[in-house]
């Protein structure tokens, strides 16, 4: 297990090290998230109550669309280089490739979310209850579910023609449970709902995460082979 974790760490570090050189995906994700905050705050201009209602949905849809920009590049290599082929040849479990890529995606999307959250809060004039652990649970579980499901689907789309066009078509139907549960729990925390009222949403997020933590162990081997 230590050996497996070491390989996951190596792959994740390589991904982040390479992204740090060009910052292509990171800058695109961040700029997209910030632009959405600015554009919607001017375009919608709703009243206080409507703002609180649309805020969680807008936040999560922005995170998912921004994250998609990075996920699409996870398994795509530049022509003539194809670094994924080197990983497939290497003496590492296929699941380690998945978790390494997912860990790197999680770090990148996590940073984008942390940067975008205060901007959304300021533009929509919503005070986030940052000391409420339930808000962080919703953000962490929603992001984890999105990244695990997204990385899995990105691998599935990687061998297809026009992979970047195919990915959203494959991913969004699969993401529906996470979108609903993440929006419901985040919205509930902002509306100061009781924890019992949000329990179902949290359970969906946990089950979704567990499913996509288990799926790569069983399926990733077949997903990457031609």
């Amino acid at each position, binding site marked *: 297990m230590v050996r497996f974790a070491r*390989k996951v760490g*190596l*792959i994740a570090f*390589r991904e982040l*090290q*390479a*992204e740090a*050189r*060009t910052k292509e995906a990171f800058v695109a994700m961040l700029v997209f998230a910030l632009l959405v905050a600015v554009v919607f705050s001017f375009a919608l201009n709703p009243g206080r109550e409507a703002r609180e209602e649309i805020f969680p949905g807008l936040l999560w849809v922005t995170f998912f669309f921004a994250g998609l920009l990075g996920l699409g590049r996870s398994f795509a*290599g*530049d022509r*003539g*280089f*194809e*670094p994924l*082929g*080197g*990983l*497939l*040849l*290497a*003496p*590492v*479990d296929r699941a380690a490739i998945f978790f390494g890529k997912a860990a790197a995606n999680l770090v990148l999307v996590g940073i984008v979310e942390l940067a975008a959250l205060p901007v959304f809060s300021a533009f929509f004039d919503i005070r986030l209850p940052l000391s409420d652990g339930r808000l962080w649970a919703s953000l962490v579980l929603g992001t984890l579910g999105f990244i695990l499901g997204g990385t899995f689907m990105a691998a599935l789309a990687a061998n297809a023609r026009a992979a970047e066009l195919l990915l959203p078509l494959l991913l969004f139907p699969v993401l529906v449970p996470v979108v609903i549960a993440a929006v419901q729990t985040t919205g509930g925390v902002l509306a100061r709902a009781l924890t019992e009222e949000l329990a179902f949403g949290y359970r969906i997020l946990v089950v979704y995460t567990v499913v996509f933590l288990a799926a790569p162990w069983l399926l990733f081997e077949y997903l990457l*082979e*031609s």
Partner: protein
Amino acid sequence: MLAAGAVSKRIGSRWILHRVSLSVPDGQVLGLFGPNGAGKTTLLRILALLARPTEGQVVLRPAGHGERLLEGPALRAHLGFLGHESYLDPRLTARENLSFYARLYDVPQSDRRVDELLDQVGLALFAHEPVRTFSRGMVQRLAMARTFLHRPSLLFLDEPLSGLDAQGAVVFEALLGEARAARASAVLVSHDVAAGWRLADRVAVLAGGELVLEGPASEIGPDRVQAEYRARAQSAERSRAAWSASHGRSA
């Protein structure tokens, strides 16, 4: 030792390979030749476990492991593949790329081995330059270093001399010589029959997905390989012309 037993591969409705059987003993190099579209790269990918055959089987037995059959990551630790893609990350430097693979393969004294190979392939001065700034030949040299980094005992080399200058070819031959001395088996695909034949102990010609000639290089000279190669290419051309004539459009 590596062997393929009646390997066939179908993509869609087309058979790319048809019942190909071959074997390469420890310490030997098989030169695999054939016209474009013969199925050489597909066969190499199947042998290197990068693709599954539709039918048939592949047996890979790294030198020094006796009759014990390895599989999964334990087997992949002994494979070296040099293909059309470099498997390098263009955003990272030459040294970072090799260090990553050295750690992934648990290469002992990895820093020393990386330096040694960068020096050997003539890229020591460019060790800290990003790979995306490299020329085609430099990328091929680095890909060569990546292939031999973990001292593999089963080598799959697809047009390894492509993009290399004369000095690069000499370095490749030295690395292959070291691997051969350590009893590694290799399959080498090349369009340059003379160069490929010179490096091979055995030769094979693949045409239309079938193995049409195989034997020791000492018995089958490059002229015979060339003749077989040309005959197959002409036969394919005649088939295409006949098809075009009967269908009224180009094949």
